[in-house]
């Protein structure tokens, strides 16, 4: 019962009173959907007649970037859309648990008589925040697709993918395919895990440094296509479903799950011994 009360409190104060965050998620998604519609127009102008789908729109937003091969003639360009989808959430979820712990949360903690429930509630809040944020983006893309007459299905148009992400055809794993739902969900799961990781990191280092660490991890994933760089699992086009040399999303699921469980357990242990001080 105490957990439900804590969670209700966190949902009220950490989600429902942060409408601006979700308004920003909507704006981000709307801008990229509009951008996607422009790329569809360009695609059609090239004489292509194949239909595009909701899946292509999601791929446009969550695709990430093609493998970067460093060379003097190939400067590294940040995957702006992908970064603008993932990093704002990390920033928005950065301060709430930390601030709560140093203010009203102290009153809550001494009344719950334990630290575990507080941590569990904050982890659940973190998961819900991430899911809600990406839910807004997915929903915006879905409504946009409906309004634009774009087919609501999971078929990926590989020609359009090549055009949007500048991928050479010989690097692609297959032709037009219907993507499994799992492939669309993994970036969201990775986002959940990475946010939890960030929250745990805040118990060891200052929140700002925690955010910078996560940002660095994500950006270095964009730089390096490797199964060990977790950010790759948040880029759908780096999946082995799309690229021959892509990362395996099944392994990605295990890594994301491991990151999630480790972050939860490390955070729980750390918080058990954590000094709740006014850091200011």
């Amino acid at each position, binding site marked *: 019962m105490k957990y439900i*009360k*804590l969670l209700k409190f966190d949902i009220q104060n950490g989600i429902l*009173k942060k409408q601006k965050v979700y308004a920003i998620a909507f704006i981000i998604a709307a801008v990229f959907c509009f951008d996607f519609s422009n790329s569809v127009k360009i695609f059609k102008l090239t004489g292509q007649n194949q239909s595009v789908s909701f899946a292509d729109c999601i791929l446009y937003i969550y695709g990430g970037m093609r493998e970067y091969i460093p060379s003097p003639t190939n400067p590294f360009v940040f995957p702006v859309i992908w970064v603008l989808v993932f990093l704002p959430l990390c920033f928005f979820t950065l301060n709430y648990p930390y601030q709560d712990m140093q203010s009203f949360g102290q009153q*809550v*903690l001494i*009344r*719950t*008589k334990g630290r575990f429930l507080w941590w569990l509630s904050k982890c659940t809040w973190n998961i819900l925040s991430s899911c809600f944020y990406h839910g807004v983006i997915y929903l915006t893309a879905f409504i946009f697709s409906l309004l634009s007459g774009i087919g609501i299905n999971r078929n990926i148009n590989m020609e359009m993918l090549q055009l949007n992400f500048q991928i050479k055809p010989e690097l692609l794993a297959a032709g037009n395919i219907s993507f499994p739902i799992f492939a669309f969900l993994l970036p969201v799961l990775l986002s959940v895990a990475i946010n939890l990781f960030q929250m745990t990191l805040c118990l060891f280092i200052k929140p700002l440094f925690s955010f910078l660490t996560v940002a660095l991890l994500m950006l270095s994933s964009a730089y390096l296509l490797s199964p060990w760089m977790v950010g790759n699992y948040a880029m759908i086009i780096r999946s082995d479903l799309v690229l021959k040399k892509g990362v395996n999303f099944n392994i990605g699921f295990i890594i994301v799950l491991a990151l999630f469980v480790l972050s939860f357990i490390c955070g729980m242990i750390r918080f058990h011994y954590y000094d*709740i001080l*006014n850091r200011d």
Partner: protein
Amino acid sequence: MTHIEIQNVGKMIHGSTVLKGINVSMHSGKIYGLQGINGSGKTMLMRLISGLIRPTEGKIEIDGKLLGKDITFPASIGLLLENPAFLDSYSGFQNLKMLSSIQQRIDDSQIKDTLVSVGLDPDSKKKYRKYSLGMKQRLGIAAAVMENPGIVILDEPTNSLDTSGVKLVKAILNMQKKRNALVVISCHDLSILQEMSDEIFLLEAGRIVNHMVLEKDN
């Protein structure tokens, strides 16, 4: 009966000693005053007793239970530390109701009675963010005492309060003593501390340098 036993407690934070060799025994029905300049370790000692931080050395027992091992927090404690912090968009009553709903020890009428006792209007819809500093402090005191906890910790309870507010704090402290609570307070105003406390611990640079037992008429 509540009993706090602090044995040879020390605390280091980022390599600095903030408390060292603290030995204190406290019993219910008494008010213990902590005196000392800023940075002397008063608030840190209060945080240790409340379980928010853990000692680097030594141990704290509350009713025979080792804090941090047998119990994470004292079984019954009310706390006002430094500046009170509540939810901005809630009224005073809503804030207290939210807190009291965790333990469900008191009902709405008791929350309202506590608000009246600290001089706040229990039916006011005014949001916490619009409270004056004095009102915030009164609400902080109300949160600390509303559930009649066995241990009451008040860090600078007279901060931001006018003369009537200070009188009110004194009345509340007496009330807590009468109901046999163990009260720990810190206050910059030595006269208030001497008037209210049964025992005073003087802290300097994280150590107790003097322990005074004050004779009271009652």
